[in-house]
């Protein structure tokens, strides 16, 4: 039994309540900082976002950090989806070795902190493999989020009704053709929403790569705080930028979902 949708007036009341609540929260935060005798200097922040010189628009350290964060997130997303699909198929395969391997990887990655995985890959594995900082960060994030993505993809595949498999086999398709032409196209539409929230997690988790001296958004924030001590102003700004990135990501996916939808 779903709750009844609110009436027109009820909707407006809801919106008003929401705005009031947000304003009250913002007021509380500012009061709290003010009560501690913190001296706000918001006017010192814009120059770290961008400035204008004779040459025109100059991106500040925060925007440079956004570019690095987006590059890391983009590359990690590709790795995570590839790893996720591969591990999901391994878990569903009929062999003895593949599911066991997939299980081992999943349990290892999901039950240890990401920070430790990043340190392990960068300080222990990377010197052996001879890969750089950026590659270490992408590998660590891709493997970590890939573990979660694989479970989501597996659930999507399992949720396709048995009848679809039987119909595909009886029309003479092999295993791979069945996956490619019948099962995966249906599974993809089901897993897009949970995968989006995983991608949002990836954006936020990418902040941890600042610990291996990659100059992403968080690291740039740390450097600005260390140089100017504009602690609250800088971290609020950085948080707002992360919010903009994740909300736009969700909006893009929503749009794509509409394009992907099966008519009828």
């Amino acid at each position, binding site marked *: 039994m779903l709750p009844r949708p609110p009436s027109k007036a009820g909707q407006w009341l809801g919106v008003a309540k929401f705005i009031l609540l947000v304003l009250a929260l913002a007021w509380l935060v500012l009061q709290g900082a003010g009560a*501690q*005798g*913190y001296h706000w200097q918001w006017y010192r922040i814009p120059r770290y976002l961008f400035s204008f010189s004779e040459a025109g628009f100059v991106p500040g350290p925060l925007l440079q950090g956004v570019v690095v964060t987006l590059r890391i997130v983009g590359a990690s997303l590709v790795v995570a989806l590839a790893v996720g699909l591969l591990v999901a198929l391994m878990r569903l395969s009929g062999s003895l070795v593949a599911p066991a391997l997939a299980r081992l990887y999943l349990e290892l990655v999901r039950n240890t902190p990401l920070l430790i995985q990043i*340190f392990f890959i960068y*300080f222990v594995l990377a*010197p052996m493999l001879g890969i750089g900082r950026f590659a270490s960060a992408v590998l660590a994030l891709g493997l970590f989020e890939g573990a979660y993505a694989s479970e989501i993809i597996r659930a999507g595949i399992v949720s396709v009704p048995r009848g679809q498999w039987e119909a595909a086999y009886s029309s003479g398709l092999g295993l791979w053709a069945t996956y490619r032409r019948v099962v995966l196209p249906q599974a993809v539409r089901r897993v897009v929403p949970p995968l989006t929230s995983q991608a949002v997690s990836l954006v936020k988790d990418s902040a941890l790569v600042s*610990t*291996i*001296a990659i100059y992403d958004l968080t*690291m740039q924030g*740390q*450097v600005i*705080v*260390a*140089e*100017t*001590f504009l*602690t*609250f102003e800088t971290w609020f700004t950085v948080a707002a930028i992360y919010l903009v990135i994740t909300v736009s990501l969700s909006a893009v996916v929503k749009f794509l979902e509409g394009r992907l939808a099966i008519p009828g």
Partner: protein
Amino acid sequence: MRSFSRILLCLTLLVALTLPAAAADLRQELVKQSTLEQVLQRGVLRVGMSTFVPWAMKDKSGELIGFEIDVASRLAQDLGVKVEFVPTKWSGIIPALLTGKFDVIIGGMGILPERNLKVNFTIPYDHSGMSLVASKKLAAGFSALADFNREDVVVVARIGTTGVKAVQKYLPRATLRQFDDEAQAVQELLNGRAHAFVTSKPKPTFLALQHPDRLFLPLPDTFTREPIGFALRKGDVDTLNFFDNWIRVVEDEGWLQERRDYWFGSQQWESRVK
């Protein structure tokens, strides 16, 4: 008109008479509100610090020892209160002071103009200097600062330290890479991904002694000299005055020099840590 000027005169007199009283009230209020007064009432001096060998570190039994620990303990003893150490990440130590997590930073903090805009510093109770320790593999044959001032040289430092400032000033061409913790910065150097690590003396010397096969000291001595002071919140003249004069007293006593000799001039304390 005459009544008006009379009222004005009365008012002027009233204001003139109450002003000194108001100022006296304000002074009393300031004295009452000072950190010093609050420490005495609480019976505990809360000291913000971060681990820097040998300023502050853990000994074998997990107790804090070091030059700063001695200074803060003696300060608390002279105030007649207990001392409580609040270990804080270096990059967040000033915000923690500003938001009242502790009363004073005694943690080998170099006096920098940028820092001084946000906090007040006492007179120096010590001087420190930056030196660097380099990787034998990458920086073989480097023997002067100029050797490190090249685009292809990577130098590591801890976020928010005067080491970062020193690199920006003396090695502007080198690539600076910053880490939040000393351990990670040192690991980067040991893994051969950076040419040198810039940090306060005597840490580079210790590192070179610990890893003689991989690290060495390219410079015989420090290349900067900086004053070290206690940091406290702004607008608190009483506490600042007390700390300044306490430093003068223990300096003239010779006690500070004796502590410096023990922690920085000798290796006697090594057995307490290992």
